[in-house]
Every structure is written in C-alpha cells, then in structure tokens.
C-alpha cells in the first residue's frame, strides 16, 4: 500500500492576513477566494443596496477593499469572515444612500432569471422577495444579527463580538427580528 500523500497545510486567515501585511498579494487573493461567496450571500440577502443582484459583485469588491485598508484595526475580536460582513453592512448603508440619490430601476425578476421551472421560481421568488422586503424594513442591528445567525449560522458570542454588543443583546435582537419577519410573512 503506497504511503499516503501529506496533506497540504491550509493557511489560517490570520496567517494570510499577516502575509498580506508583509506584501504578499496572493495572500489577499486567497482571502477573497475564501470568503467572497459567503459575503455575496450576506449582501444579496441584505438587499444589495437596493441595486439588485448584478451589483453584488461591486459591493463584494468594495467590502474587501475597505477591509484590507482597515486591517490594522482588526484585533481578532471575531472571525475575519464575520468582521468582513460588518464592513459589508457599512458598504450597504452607503450604497442605499447613493441609490436614494440616483434612483435605479431594477430589472424585473423574470428577466433576470431565465433558468429552471418558471412556476417554482415564481413561488420561491415571492417568499424570498417578501423576506427580503421584511429584512429591509428591520433596524440595521436586527437585520445583521438575523442574517449572521440564521443565514451564516454564527453563535451569539461571535455575532456580539463583531457588532460590538453582548450575546444577550444579540439574542434579543434576533428574537425581535424573527417576530417581525414572521408577522410580515404571515
């Protein structure tokens, strides 16, 4: 039986951050590859600044750029991915502000989605749209706690560390968010 090949060590986020600070561009690229999709899901669910899915790419880029600029302030109070999402929240806030100034008419859902069963898309899409609308109406803290918990599956301690609050308060925000969203989806 041939000896097993050694498993290549996967560098931690902390190691990649240190390497980027030392000038290693590939470390930054690896951080983007590792977290971009999760961030896109978070931003897409948060409404993508009122600009539609197509612009999630821009928001993801902008979030990473701001994160790399601010890496000196990242003290490991939470995971890098969680911290990234809080920065994404700020990017979204700015995008909303800009969208209000320059009103963009989003493409109709049926024009954006051309694959799969149209009926299934319509049913699933309607619930998702209602949830997305409900999320947009929530206060920012409730929305972010809800998404970090329900969508990203984070623990309250982690969420509290990222959002600068206590686990107990994060739990309360989550329950308020759930209550309000259920009312809106009923």
């Amino acid at each position: 039986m041939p000896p097993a090949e050694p498993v290549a060590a996967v560098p931690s986020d902390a190691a990649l951050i240190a390497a980027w600070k030392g000038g290693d561009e590939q470390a930054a690229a690896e951080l983007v590859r590792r977290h971009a999709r999760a961030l896109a899901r978070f931003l897409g669910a948060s409404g993508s600044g009122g600009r539609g899915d197509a612009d999630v790419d821009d928001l993801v880029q902008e979030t990473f750029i701001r994160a790399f600029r601010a890496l000196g302030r990242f003290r490991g109070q939470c995971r890098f991915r969680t911290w990234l999402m809080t920065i994404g929240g700020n990017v979204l806030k700015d995008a909303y502000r800009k969208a209000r100034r320059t009103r963009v008419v989003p493409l109709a859902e049926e024009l954006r989605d051309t694959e799969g069963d149209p009926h299934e898309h319509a049913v699933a899409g309607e619930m998702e749209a209602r949830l997305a609308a409900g999320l947009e109406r929530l206060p920012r803290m409730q929305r972010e706690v809800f998404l970090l918990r329900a969508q990203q599956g984070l623990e309250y301690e982690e969420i509290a560390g990222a959002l600068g609050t206590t686990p107990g308060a994060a739990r309360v925000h989550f329950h308020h968010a759930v209550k309000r969203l259920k009312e809106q989806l009923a």
Partner: protein
Amino acid sequence: MNDDQLEKLAQRLGARAAERLDVEATAQAVIERLRAERAAGERIGSWLPRQWLRIAAALVIVVGGGAVALRIMGSSHQSSASAPADLDGLSTDQLKQVLEGVGESGGEAVVSVQDVGLDDLNTVELRALLESLEG
C-alpha cells in the same frame, strides 16, 4: 411559518448572487485596486515632504511679513496722529529715545507661525500665498 422554515428561507436569500459571483475575477479586481492604491500612496509619500516644506516656507514669509507690515503701519499711524501734540515739548535726547523705542517695537513684531492660521490672513495675503504656491 416556523423558525426552521424561516431560517431555510433566509439561507436561500442571496444564494443566487453568490452563485453568480465570479470569485476569481473579484479576487483579481481587488488585487488590482489594492496595487493601484499602494502605488498612489507611495507617490504621495514622496511628494508630500517637499511640498509641505514649500508651503510652510511660503506661510512663514507671507504671514510673518504681513504681521510686521501691519505692526509698522499701526505704530506709524499712532505716531503721526500724536506727534503734533506730544513731540513739540521733547528735548533731542528724549526724541532719540522715542525713535529707538519705535525701532524696538518693529523688531518685536515677529509672529510665531504657530499662532497664525489661514483665517488670520486678509484677501491680499491669501492671494500672495496662492501665487507663491503656484509659482
């Protein structure tokens, strides 16, 4: 709708955006922007010290010169206004002392740059400052 259904629905939100994201292109775009920012930062870093020195020197000249001129003009106004009334009765030695005093007050009119800001400059001084910066 129960909590599980809500969570499942939340997990689907944004999934399409995540699937559509071209991760590699995003990584490259981010790296390009970071590279451009670093290069711009280095350019500014080499430009700033020289420009700041020039600006500081121009400020010292304009602000200091302006303050001295103002002080001299102010004292000459005062002297000329009071001369007919006060100087007639003075002896030659006393007049010499007055003149020395005027000279000394002119010499004291050096103003620290730290005490003076752009708000303290009048239109002419600001224009002179701008011209010196352009030149």
